[in-house]
């Protein structure tokens, strides 16, 4: 009886977690006329890739009429998402890897105060800083530029990355570094050649968390990426709704394409991801 309850709970948990994603996948391969039928099917009678063809095709049809292809927009937004998320991840991890180590191992004036203030900004919602930031970015000419968006991402994700990297370094034995210092190695050399290689799993975890956060951003690019020059997928896809006709097949197909990078990360690097979440949440 208790085993049965356990398996029921397990089943509900799995269904709750991937059910909606599965439904989006089913929708994305269901023909348009089957989407508006009353019969509930867990897999379409006839599978179709026409929604994907609309995304990737050079020409596009909607309700029998030829309409403008969304591929130029879609590909540009996909590229923007990848570029900004990737650049933000590299910068954040690089800065946090060196900065986090300095906060743990080096003594300098104001160290603890600076660290507390920076981690404290985790409690500040994005909108509290976004309005003045918008005016700062306008006067710096950085609205709708990769530089502007990436810098904002870095400032948003750096506190958590620093927190994670600090806990990674704190868990490392100091004796290793001391041995290298006694052999005459400089502190920076020790960090690059001995500490960073050992911090690999922590760096990967930090990178994954940063990438996922940047990939999913919506509020920041909604304000700071008004045109296709830098507009990411998360801002482009909802715009498919605002036309007079809502093409749910297309939207679900676009959504499925947009979740490919996160899903790949979850499949191949889930160990690091969970480690990072646990380290970031506890302590």
């Amino acid at each position, binding site marked *: 009886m208790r085993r049965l309850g356990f398996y029921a*709970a*397990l089943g509900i*948990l*799995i269904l709750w*977690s*991937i059910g*909606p*994603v599965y*439904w*989006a996948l089913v929708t994305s391969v269901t023909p348009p006329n089957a989407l508006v*039928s009353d019969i*509930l099917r867990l897999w379409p009678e006839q599978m179709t890739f026409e929604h994907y063809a609309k995304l990737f095709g050079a020409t596009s049809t909607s309700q029998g009429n030829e309409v403008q292809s969304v591929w130029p927009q879609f590909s540009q937004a996909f590229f923007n998402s990848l570029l900004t998320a990737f650049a933000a991840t590299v910068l954040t991890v690089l*800065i946090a890897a060196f*900065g986090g180590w*300095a906060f743990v191992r*080096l003594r*300098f*004036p104001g*160290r603890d105060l600076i660290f507390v203030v920076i981690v404290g*900004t985790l*409690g*500040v*919602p994005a*909108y*509290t*800083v*976004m*309005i*003045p930031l*918008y*005016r*700062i970015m306008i006067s710096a000419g950085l609205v709708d530029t990769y530089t502007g968006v990436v*810098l904002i991402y*870095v*400032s948003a994700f*750096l506190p958590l990355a620093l927190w994670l990297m600090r806990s990674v370094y704190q868990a490392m034995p100091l004796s290793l570094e001391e041995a290298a210092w006694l052999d005459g190695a400089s*502190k*920076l050399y020790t960090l690059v050649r001995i500490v960073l290689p050992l911090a690999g799993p922590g760096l990967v975890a930090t990178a994954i968390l940063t990438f*996922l956060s940047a990939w*999913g*951003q*919506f*509020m920041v690019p*909604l304000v700071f990426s008004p045109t296709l020059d830098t507009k990411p997928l998360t801002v482009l*896809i*909802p715009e498919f709704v605002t036309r007079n006709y809502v093409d749910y097949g297309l939207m*679900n197909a676009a*959504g499925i394409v*947009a*979740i490919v990078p*996160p*899903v790949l*990360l*979850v499949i191949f690097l*889930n160990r690091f991801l*969970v480690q990072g*979440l*646990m380290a970031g*949440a*506890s302590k």
Partner: protein
Amino acid sequence: MTSRFIPKRPLFGQEARLGLYLTAPVILIMGVLVILPLILTVVESFYRVEQMKQGIPFIGFKNYANLMLDKDVLKSWNNTFIYVVIAVAIETLGGLGAALVLNKVKIGRRWLLAVVVLPWCLPPVVNAIIWLWIYNPSYGLLNALLRSVGLISESHVWFNDRFTGLLLVAVVHAWRMLPLTAIILLAALQSIPANLYEAARLDGASAWRQFWLITLPLISGGLAISLSQSTVFAFNLFDEAWILNGSSIGTRSLMVQVYMSAFQNMKFSLGMALSIMAMIASLIVSAIYVLRVYKETRFD
């Protein structure tokens, strides 16, 4: 006379200089892009800063006073409080259940964890679009499922009812954030020594009593963390409300209201004042949790 021969000492030692070099990017980026705007937000919330009007006169607490009287703003406060209550309840109960299940699973736990964290990893916008289709009044899965089990006889337009709308938006948010609670509580569960349960079993304690007397008190630290995280995130709910129901007043959250005041009506300082009030409220609520959980579960 002799002072000329004393070499000029640098302001900081070698170690301090290296420390400052390595943290300079952190200080620079956070200073210019977070701390400075935060200070500006606080200061300018006492001025009238609007795109359409000339000058920025000092107006004291007038922005705040206007916000207290604005019907839409009051309603969005109300909505946000409802979001927080529903989302935190679902995330905490569901997250605890998920953590208990995960803790029991022996085979393939890694893969089950991957499945459970998946919703958290996806872009919130895509989540909301997936659920928007599920909630679709004519062809959505929710109506179809409820009809097929006979709970409803005809399809509902879910967002016609304010409370149902709030519930559905909160469910999407909770779907995304539940994994975080589950992971935090799982970490707490794994730190409970197994011999405590053995001793309790020898004393004849039921599974239920073991849960109340051992599990719950020992994961209270994790609960406090997850509760305050859920609260802060639910306070800042934006993406789900915006995608699912746009600017409709029935489901408008505080952050949607801030966005509309600042970036649609271009009343910057009004938005700033509101965002400060929201921040303070969310921090107070989460601080209350932490203190209460800490007090009630501490053993002396």
